[in-house]
């Protein structure tokens, strides 16, 4: 049963999830900050674009810590590679699909005001029903799209 549901075992998933929750929980308890990630992209664009929507106070006020947070994520990945993993991971997903997928991810997450972290973890932890609706929506859409893409051979 366990092998069928989790062919690679369940424990690293659970441990990783607990670490992710601890990071988001600690950021809240220590600094009072809600640690979603999609806002990082808009907040960082505020350094280089003068679009009014990118010059909102909520982006300007948070762009510094969001940049530090993102730098931490890169360091965390590197720390894992240096200890338990290895450097030089790659993916079989082709670059054009990463670019197109990324564009939809950035556009959609900013429209919806949250991503897997913002809605999926912070929003659910805040017991906000709009986030629950968003999570159900993006999970369903992603499942349909991934299955169709596999069916039509778009994906490896």
């Amino acid at each position: 049963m366990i092998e069928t549901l989790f062919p690679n075992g369940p424990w690293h998933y659970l441990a990783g999830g607990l670490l992710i929750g601890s990071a988001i929980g600690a950021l809240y308890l220590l600094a009072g900050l809600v640690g979603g990630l999609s806002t990082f992209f808009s907040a960082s664009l505020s350094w280089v674009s003068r679009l009014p929507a990118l010059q909102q106070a909520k982006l300007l006020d948070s762009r510094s810590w969001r940049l530090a947070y993102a730098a931490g994520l890169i360091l965390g990945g590197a720390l894992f590679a240096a200890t338990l993993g290895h450097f030089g991971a790659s993916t079989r997903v082709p670059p054009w699909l990463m670019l197109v997928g990324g564009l939809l991810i950035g556009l959609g997450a900013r429209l919806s005001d949250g991503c897997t972290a913002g809605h999926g973890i912070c929003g659910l932890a805040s017991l906000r029903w709009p986030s629950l609706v968003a999570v159900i929506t993006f999970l369903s859409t992603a499942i349909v799209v991934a299955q169709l893409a596999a069916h039509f051979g778009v994906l490896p």
Partner: protein
Amino acid sequence: MSRLLIALLCGVVFGFGLSLATMTQPEVVLAFLRFQDLGLLLVLGGAVIVALLAYQIGPRLLARPLAGAFFEQRQAPFSRRTVIGAAIFGAGWGLCGVCPGPAIAGLGLGNLDMLWALAGIFIGAWLQARFFGSSDAQAR
């Protein structure tokens, strides 16, 4: 401790957790979306349970964060955009198996393919600000 340092350190733990949970490998996320490996549910469930405790108990026990001024709240109210945006996000996630956190953390693992996804996310965020940003206030 300054909030920059707190954000940096929490980011390190977040990035390490994403890597340990192999969420930085698009193939693992795509396997979940195709029901071949349900591990992502354990990642999300584990993360939500811990974050839920912090979010719900923290403000009841503490007048303010241990090293901050006040507890931020997620503010964005519900609108059509919440659902339409989530559907667009889901389509992108289902196409490439990447989401914002793993795209950033994957760079630390030396996965330079993630630069394509990151470029796409920046372009998408810019498009949102350019074409849907000005009506933010009215639409909500």
